[in-house]
């Protein structure tokens, strides 16, 4: 049903999006918690940095990634010495997706934390739970809807990531040619439009499935909470 190139793009897109989401999650939870619960002097700066990937053109992000993490990049050269290569590599595609999708994941989780009734956490503390235990047993489970929404948004955004990815890791079949990049490549070829259209439909199906799964998971959780 699918050609090898299409399967390769599909597998690569799913792999990159999944890793990006998994790695972003703990950082997003930590940052969301900090922003939701703490006030500090440089908070406005942290917020601005967080929003930056959302307002910068993806190509600019890709270029910055190249300058920082390319093989000769400021950080990349040291990573290279340790055997870690990010440019022209699916791992670099994961990094690009993480940067652009991270703000999308933080916001819903932060909102979830803000919506938790603080008194529930106080009660848990008075019952003998340490702050860490309160976080794990009360705050985190109650923030689950936000974490789910954030994960789905992050995953979907990663599936569609193009500009930063192609600038940073290039367009290498089986290595960095994700679905959007494959579509772009097919559109450059003399009679590639029909392949491009197939991949566009595939993208739509994937995005829809993610959103529908999100809907049902949320429903189930809300039913459990009696909302």
């Amino acid at each position, binding site marked *: 049903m699918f050609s090898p190139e299409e399967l390769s793009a599909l597998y690569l897109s799913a792999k990159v999006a999944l890793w990006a989401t998994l790695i972003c999650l703990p950082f997003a939870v930590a940052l969301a918690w900090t922003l939701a619960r703490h006030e500090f002097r440089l908070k406005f700066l942290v917020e601005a940095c967080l929003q930056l990937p959302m307002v910068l053109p993806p190509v600019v992000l890709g270029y910055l990634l*190249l300058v920082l993490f*390319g*093989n*000769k990049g400021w950080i990349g050269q040291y990573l290279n010495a340790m055997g870690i290569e990010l*440019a*022209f590599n699916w791992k670099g595609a994961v990094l690009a997706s993480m940067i652009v999708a991270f703000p999308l994941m933080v916001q819903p989780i932060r909102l979830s934390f803000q919506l938790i009734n603080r008194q529930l956490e106080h009660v848990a503390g008075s019952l003998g739970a340490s702050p860490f235990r309160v976080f794990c047993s009360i705050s985190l489970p109650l923030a689950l809807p936000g974490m789910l929404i954030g994960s789905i948004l992050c995953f979907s955004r990663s599936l569609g990531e193009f500009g930063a990815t*192609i600038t940073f890791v*290039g*367009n*290498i079949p*089986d*290595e960095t040619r994700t679905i959007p990049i494959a579509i772009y*490549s097919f*559109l*450059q*070829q*003399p009679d*590639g439009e029909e392949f491009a259209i197939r991949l566009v439909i595939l993208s739509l199906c994937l995005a829809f499935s993610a959103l529908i799964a999100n809907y049902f998971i949320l429903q189930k959780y809300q039913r459990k909470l009696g909302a």
Partner: protein
Amino acid sequence: MKKSLFFSVCLAASISVAHAETVRIYAAASLTNAIIDLGKIYQKQYPNTNLVPVYGASSALAKQLEAGASSDIFFSADLDWMNYLIKKNLIHQNRVKPLLFNQLVVISPKNLNIPFKAQSGFNFAQSFKGHLCTGQMESVPAGKYAKQSLTKLNWLNSLNGRIVGTDDVRSALVFVERGECDVGIVYKTDALISQKVKIIGTLPADSHHPIIYPIALTKQGAKNADAIQFEKFIKTSPQAKSIFQTYGFRMSQS
């Protein structure tokens, strides 16, 4: 008061439209510097002409033209994409003139010492680490020529997974300049422009299709007097010839 202001704005606009003739030339990325230079010379002679160059991979440009982009002249890096537009009825076959020749070279960053021999017995894949940068091999002319050469020299399979295809040949050049790629395959004319790369070898002319740069007026351009004049300038003027040769292009005989 408002009416007269409105009127004068319209008048000014119509005057400016009447005097500035726009010529849109869609040129392959490898022609960027040459076109800029001869554009400057042309503008000195004809200051009223508004030259709008659009540079990119010939594949991307051709696709844009097919999608309806407004263009008067198409100057491609291979015949395939010119023929593509002829098939799509945007250019007349008899308007096409092959103008320039180019060569394909292998480059590396200036500070590296990578051996190269343009013979199929030479183990190219082992001679460098990391990736090789060139244009997208399915669409960008530089990449297509590169693929032909690599196939002819029996190197393509051994380089599997290490070839980075860029949007256009200049991007490949930049990657090698930055040292992100140890080697690249670009046109000789591109290599000569850069201070940060060196040519480590030339791919034999018989290992790929002749690298011909055809130029043609589009159907739209054929009705634009200024476009016709500019195209003639590029094809026949001694200044244009001198510029192309300075950059390393060879002129076509015909």
